[in-house]
């Protein structure tokens, strides 16, 4: 027996429990071949385990305790069954609420951008034309949009409209007579 025997005894215990890896197993086998104390420990473990298994093998709880446990198991299942529809309904409601919120957020994020009308600047009148579709019609008929024109809409206007618009623009720019 040497100082390292405690380590090898731990290995014997791990070998018995199936937790020793192959490398350590080979090392242990080499040690056991030359160490009587560790071999004796290994046999002692086997005998102690065998004796304890024989002794404790007949220990069983009283039948009434087992019956109570099984009754509790049945009650638990019944309770689960009672709880399940409520839990299911709650989950559906929660999912529906989440869906509504998500839909609302999506609608807010994707709603058509409200065109911000840009007033004509004297230096770059063409670059300032508002393109937003929503305001295109309004810009023609709403008095508030009198001074606005839409580039897209220009393509849809006929000759008379152009004449009217030209006049409007000239008026805005102070060119009209």
């Amino acid at each position, binding site marked *: 027996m040497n100082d390292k025997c*405690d380590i090898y005894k731990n290995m014997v215990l791990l070998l018995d429990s199936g937790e020793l890896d192959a490398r350590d197993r080979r090392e242990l086998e080499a040690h056991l071949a030359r160490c009587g104390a560790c071999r004796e420990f290994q046999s002692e473990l086997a005998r102690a385990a065998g004796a304890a298994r024989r002794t404790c*093998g007949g220990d069983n*709880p009283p039948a009434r305790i087992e019956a109570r446990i099984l009754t509790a198991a049945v009650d638990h299942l019944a309770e689960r069954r009672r709880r399940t529809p409520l839990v299911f309904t709650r989950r559906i409601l929660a999912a529906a609420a989440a869906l509504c919120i998500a839909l609302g957020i999506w609608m807010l994020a994707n709603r058509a951008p409200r065109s911000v009308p840009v007033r004509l600047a004297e230096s770059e009148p063409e670059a300032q034309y508002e393109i937003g579709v929503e305001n295109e019609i309004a810009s023609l008929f709403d008095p508030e949009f009198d001074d606005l024109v839409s580039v897209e809409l220009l393509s849809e206007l006929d000759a008379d409209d152009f004449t009217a618009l030209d006049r409007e623009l000239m008026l805005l720019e102070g060119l009209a007579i």
Partner: protein
Amino acid sequence: MAMPDQELLAKYRAGDVRAFEELVQKYKNPLYSYILRTVYTRDEADDVFQEVWLRAIRNIDRCDGRKFLSWLFRIAHNLIIDRYRKSRPVVSLDEKKDGAPALVDNLPDKGEAPFRRMIDGETGATIDRALALLPVEQKEVFLMRVQADIPFKEIARIQRVSINTALARMQYALAKLRIAIAEDMASTGGGAK
């Protein structure tokens, strides 16, 4: 072939009580044996055993079934520790008191291999008396390993100690059992051949 614990648990969760009954039948012996030798009376053992299973039922969804027996032992270990804390202080043979050497230090390195001399008929009472002398933490390791076949890695987790501590406790337990059995045999005349 016995059905794996995971399947039995799944069947129970699906409404099959017989699957749970099978689990109780499968593990009642090692669990009850461990509890019986770790508490003081049979009534106490019955209470703890019942409470372990009731807690297991209440928390059944937390266990995936891969280490069901270890899980049961962990519940039992926690219950027993709670009872010890509430009732009586645990006297450990490892502890040194008033500067005196710990009882474990007085154990001789080499025994007379009393396990070898044990005769089957007298084994039960002898080993029971020897087990009763072990400190609870060593008795736990011995019973979990020998009786329930729980690996040391799991035992260490249950006791919340390192695997080296669990292994050392097993070594101490075996050494003390050897001494206790030798003394028991000497006093009863058993094995003195």
